[in-house]
């Protein structure tokens, strides 16, 4: 490159247009073409690598389904089963139903992890919010003078507020006192669990009104409501993370907080919001779980945070922040769901299931091709 003359105004505009066309990612400016791109073998290999990088998680999901499907088919061939129960639409609906709670938690977790943090408290916050919902929706106590629409709105409102409050508190502690998110949310993990028990003196709450129960057991058309809510939450979260200024700021704060601040981003506010979102979604998950089981349990959601983290990490979200996709998390949750479901169907004992799950998480992270680029 020779030292350049300054560009004329017209030239600049022209260049700007050229570059905006380049954004599609398909074209390369002639001046910057990478050397040695001619070999077709290279390009095939490169394309395969690119494909694996972008769709590796989808491929892994499909492979897993095929694997479980074959194992089930083997049983059928041996005459042990009369039909392949894995490959049925009912079973896939069941899998979605089973992952909806973990999926919703994992979406919130993805926000937090991309922002460079971690939220260990989601399981406890889920229990707290669920218990709040239950305590306003039970027919056993006199705290429910409401009827009709209110019978539904009040417990939900309290549950969501409880979740948001816990999450915002997490975010405030993390950003205000510069405490490591691991520690701050570990505190909340204990505190929220304690608060759940304190609400009822350690007892479960049962006899919930049918309005609330509908959230866990009802259907919209032929689709169970938890699945509908999971889809809605996913769509909204995807739009927020990919299309809004806030979403971009979440990536920036997680990628390099100092740089984000220098660019005029109020990183503390972003963090509080991110944890509040995680808390809110824990609240949603709490409502669903309470509605599903028909009671508020003090031990609800124990260790759910680990499954949520696992789903995000399997999906390629980097624990060092700044990197991750919600679609990855979705497939991370699906993989875990298929795994649980398939192993259950195949009658694998639960201890071996845990071992296999642990190995799966490690394998997923080790072979993830996008991981190297992210850590470089």
């Amino acid at each position, binding site marked *: 490159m020779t030292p350049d003359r300054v*560009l004329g105004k017209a030239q600049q505009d*022209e260049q700007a247009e050229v570059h905006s066309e380049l954004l599609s990612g398909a074209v*390369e400016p002639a001046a910057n073409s990478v050397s040695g791109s001619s070999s077709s073998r290279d390009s095939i290999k490169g394309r395969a690598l690119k494909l694996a990088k972008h769709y590796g998680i989808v491929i892994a999901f499909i492979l897993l389904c095929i694997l479980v499907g074959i194992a089930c088919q083997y049983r059928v061939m041996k005459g042990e089963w009369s039909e392949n129960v894995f490959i049925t639409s009912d079973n896939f609906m069941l899998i979605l139903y089973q992952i909806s709670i973990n999926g919703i938690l994992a979406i919130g977790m993805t926000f937090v992890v991309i922002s460079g943090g971690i939220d260990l408290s989601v399981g406890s916050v889920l229990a707290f919010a669920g218990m709040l919902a239950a305590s306003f929706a039970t027919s056993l106590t006199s705290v429910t003078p409401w009827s009709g629409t209110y019978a539904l709105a009040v417990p939900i409102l309290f549950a969501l507020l409880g979740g948001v409050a816990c999450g915002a508190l997490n975010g405030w502690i993390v950003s205000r006192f510069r405490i490591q998110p691991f520690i701050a949310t570990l505190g909340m993990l204990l505190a929220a669990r304690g608060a759940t028990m304190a609400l009822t003196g350690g007892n479960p709450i049962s006899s919930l009104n049918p309005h609330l129960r509908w959230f866990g057991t009802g259907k919209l058309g032929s689709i169970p409501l938890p699945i509908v809510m999971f889809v809605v939450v996913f769509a909204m979260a995807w739009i927020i993370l990919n*299309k809004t200024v806030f979403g971009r700021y979440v990536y*920036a704060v997680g990628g390099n907080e100092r*740089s984000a601040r220098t660019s005029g981003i109020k990183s503390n506010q972003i963090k509080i919001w991110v944890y509040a979102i995680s808390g809110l979604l824990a609240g949603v998950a709490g409502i669903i779980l309470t509605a599903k089981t028909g009671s508020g349990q003090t031990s609800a959601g124990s260790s759910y945070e680990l499954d949520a983290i696992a789903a995000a990490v399997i999906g390629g979200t980097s624990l060092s922040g700044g990197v991750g996709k919600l679609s990855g998390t979705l497939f991370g949750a699906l993989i875990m769901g298929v795994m649980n479901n398939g192993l259950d169907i195949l009658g694998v004992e639960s201890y071996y299931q845990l071992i296999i799950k642990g190995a799966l998480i490690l394998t997923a992270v080790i072979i993830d091709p996008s991981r190297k680029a992210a850590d470089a």
Partner: protein
Amino acid sequence: MQPPLLSIRAIKKNFSGVHALVDGSLELERGDIHALCGGNGAGKSTLLNILMGFTKPDGGEIFIEGKPVRFMNAKEALNAGIAIVQQELSAVPHLTVAENIYLGAEPSRYGFVDFRQLNEQAEKLLKSLGFELDPTARMDTLGIASQQLVEIAKALSHRDADILIFDEPTSALGEEDAGRLFEAMRDMAPAGKGIIFVTHRIAEIFAIANTYTVFKDGARVKSGRVSDITREQLIEAMIGGDVAGEFVKENKPGSVPLLEVRGLTRAPHFADISFTLHQGEVLGIYGLVGSGRTEVLDTIYGLHRGRSGSISMRGKRLKGGSIGEALEAGIAYVTEDRKLSGLVLCASVGDNLSLSVLRRIQTWGFIRSKEERLRVGKAVGMMRIKTPTTRELVQNLSGGNQQKVVFGRCVLREPKVLLLDEPTRGVDVGTKREIYRFISDFAGTGGAVIMVSSELEELIGVSDRILVFRKGHLVSALSRAEATQKKLMMAAV
């Protein structure tokens, strides 16, 4: 005649075609404190790395007491009696002095650390060096100078080293601590050791060294006894030839004040700084690391609270302590370290460029993507950023192009005043010139620039006026016509 303790002759070293060393030569006698001088990129660190066995030379010879040696790794150099005290402190703060000195080489009995012997050994070593330190004191209770002494003791603990290398040992020290370190050095030299001392502070060379070697562009250009050379001659030897044509300078400073700083103080970093930046002006700031130069830029940009004095932008006073306010007022900042505080490395070129203007191109929080593409494209074109696509991750770009991305992000905000801290650090010569071109054009079209730099040539080549900082005070202001490297350096040290 006895051969010198250390003799390095015509060492050569290329790094992928770039000549880091052409003629690396140096002689060191017993009892000498030898100053190794030269600017950045002169080849000093390469020479030291070769001497320590970290890198292998492409040619040349090294003799210790007349015997040729060739080190394949750092351990061989250590065994030959060469020890280095690194620039950065590497002590473990929660361990004691003795534990730090013998870290990894603790005397042990049945697998347990023998603390009594450890402390006795350390005490003996410290006494022999003349350091008054308690071996059982915890490292984090010591001052930086004492910690530096522990580093020295550690370097000497492996073996009784004859050749000691101090690589900018005072860069982290205050004057008093540096004095204590010098005393220790003065005590060691007469005991028959040879000391090589690297520093950027000219005054220190005259305070402590008795011989010197000047490097420039990978070769020895001058050496001799410190008593035979004046300060001016030494600086001249380090600066060397003419640099005309390297810079771009077309802007003309106007008379309309843009940024006025009055009595700006933030203890303990700087005090009572006043200057006015005019439209069309490039204002250079020179000073050593720790002189408060970066801190002043940080404060103008609102990175820190708790300042006194006033900052006014186009006559409007800034409250301070708010980056948002500074950005709104039209101030943009290219920070010193683009990887640490400039770029989001794991994000794309496009995302990095648009980061600070997203708020201006949104409707109810949603990014207007077409407008974003347009602005990103404009920045890529204006800064001539070389990237396959704007989706490329910024970490895959070259250093120069990364720096252009930082500039591009600032420019998209259409600022009036640009604060630049070491804008050409780690950037190749071609890109440097593009950056100078940009600075000149930016100032020439109604903006103004404040540029902090350690490179004197660059400051003189680009600035209309240069302020010199020393220990947090503005000590000198030179116009473009008066400024010379000698004057600037003399004012700064």
